[in-house]
């Protein structure tokens, strides 16, 4: 092929998240191999690729959730807001306040809707009861959930539908005002209607924060993401503006994947 490789990375001058030569191992198994990637501020970056390609591992290394996995080890550099996340003196607890994570399966606490929201806020701020009420309402509104739950704030969060639970988890993360929101296949357990609501939400949220979403669903990446990265066997194969990646991929591997020849 004669088309020059994409140089979109060079256009991202002030990335919110940036990795250089990032490698991650689980015990002896290498899950990520020297990945260089930049996430543009206030944009949505999707990471796509087949199961086991390392996309979730990459996502979780951004807020150091991999630290909790026994035998997990990393090399290379990862910066959030220019600050080395794995540098000495970095407290992963403070990092996670800045970098929220939404899990594949909605995981509300087995408590009331209100307490789900209040937990994170109370960890980080000393809020009066009325302030707390305000923060809870604002976060639920921001997650487009307020109208559905305003009359059942004291009911168990586990009584909500799957889609509502996932938006509750998003609201819970929003309540502590993260700068970056990581989403690990947030819609894979949801029906199409609930999925559409989350995608609408992503559009609104990117005005306020940088979003990185891992997804199995290529249509979803095409719909919500400004940039898309394709990973395969722990390597970054291609990274480009979403439309360019889907319409004129440079790598054969990318083309085979997005046209459904493997996956």
């Amino acid at each position, binding site marked *: 092929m004669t088309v020059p490789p994409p140089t979109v990375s060079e256009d991202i001058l002030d990335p919110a998240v940036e990795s250089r030569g990032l490698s991650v191992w689980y015990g002896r198994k290498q899950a990520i191999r020297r990945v260089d990637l930049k996430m543009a501020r206030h944009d949505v970056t999707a990471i796509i690729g087949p199961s086991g390609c390392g996309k979730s591992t990459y996502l979780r290394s951004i*807020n150091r959730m991999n630290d909790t996995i026994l035998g997990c080890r990393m090399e290379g550099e990862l910066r959030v807001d220019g600050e080395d996340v794995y540098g000495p003196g970095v407290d992963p607890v*403070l990092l*996670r306040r800045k970098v*929220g994570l939404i899990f594949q399966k909605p995981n509300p*606490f087995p408590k009331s809707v209100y307490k789900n929201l209040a*937990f*994170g806020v109370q960890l980080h701020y000393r809020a009066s009861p009325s302030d707390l009420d305000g923060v809870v309402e604002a976060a639920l509104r921001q997650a487009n959930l307020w109208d559905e739950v305003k009359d059942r704030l004291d009911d168990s969060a586990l009584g909500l539908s799957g889609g509502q639970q996932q938006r509750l988890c998003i609201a819970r*993360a929003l309540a*502590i005002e993260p700068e970056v929101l990581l989403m690990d296949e947030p819609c894979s357990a949801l029906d199409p209607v609930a999925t559409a609501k989350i995608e609408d939400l992503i559009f609104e949220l990117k005005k306020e924060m940088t979003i990185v979403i891992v997804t199995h669903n290529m249509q979803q990446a095409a719909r919500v993401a400004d940039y898309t990265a394709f990973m395969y066997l722990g390597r970054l194969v291609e990274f480009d503006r979403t439309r360019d990646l889907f319409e004129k991929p440079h790598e054969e591997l990318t083309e085979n994947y997005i046209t459904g020849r493997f996956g």
Partner: protein
Amino acid sequence: MRRTTERAYVVAFLAGIGVAVATLAVLLGSILAAAWPRLSWNLVFNFSNSTDPSTAGYAAAIVGTLWLVGLTLLFSLPLGIAAGTYLEEYAGHGRTTRLLQAGVTNLAGVPSVVFGLLGLALFVRALGLGAIILAGALTLTILVFPYVVITTQEALRAVPSSIRDAALALGATKWQSIRRQVLPAATPGLLTASILAAARAMGETAPLLVIGALFLQTFLPDGPEDPFVALPVQIYAYSTLPTGTWGGVAAAGMVILLGMLFSFNIVAIVARNRLQRHRW
């Protein structure tokens, strides 16, 4: 052929349950039959004696057992829950952990009379407490401790790791995640731990005999520093007297003991079910 085999297994399982239910029924039936002529409120309000079965009662034993069980729970629950939380959430998977774990498991299998000897040597003699309620409760605490640890671990294991992840991802420290989310979510299981501990403490006879519980007590214990008799010990004491006249008194004591045990379990189970409204 396959259907016959299938049916044979179901019959075998039913037979197993049948044996269990029948044993329980015979046990309860025979105790009630023996106790029936003796059942009266005098049993609860009268003190023990060894001369007149018609007036002998369990007043001191009931109060003694309440003291013992209460103190044992007070000591063993915080200790056991702390140890179980450490082993399950903090200790990792190294050799030391496996050794500690094996120690706890083996402790649960030690015959209770051995704990009695330990209690006698350590609390009654070395610490000079004497045969008082506190010494009994401390002995029972060592006895139920491994059960509390193991049940706590099971309760924590039943809390999905997604709850821990959710708390950590919100910027909670490990302890904040355990204290504010994992332990509360494990509360129903922790109540099971308290049921087991209380049932064990209520029913133990041998260790209390060894450390020197009384047989005849004609006053109510006022506090942890008083000598004591416990229900199972009192039942045993009555059963050593001539069976013809005293067997009914002993059986009536068993009815009281079982009644206390069941009431405690019912309270704990109701509390557990109320807590289980919020469940994943």
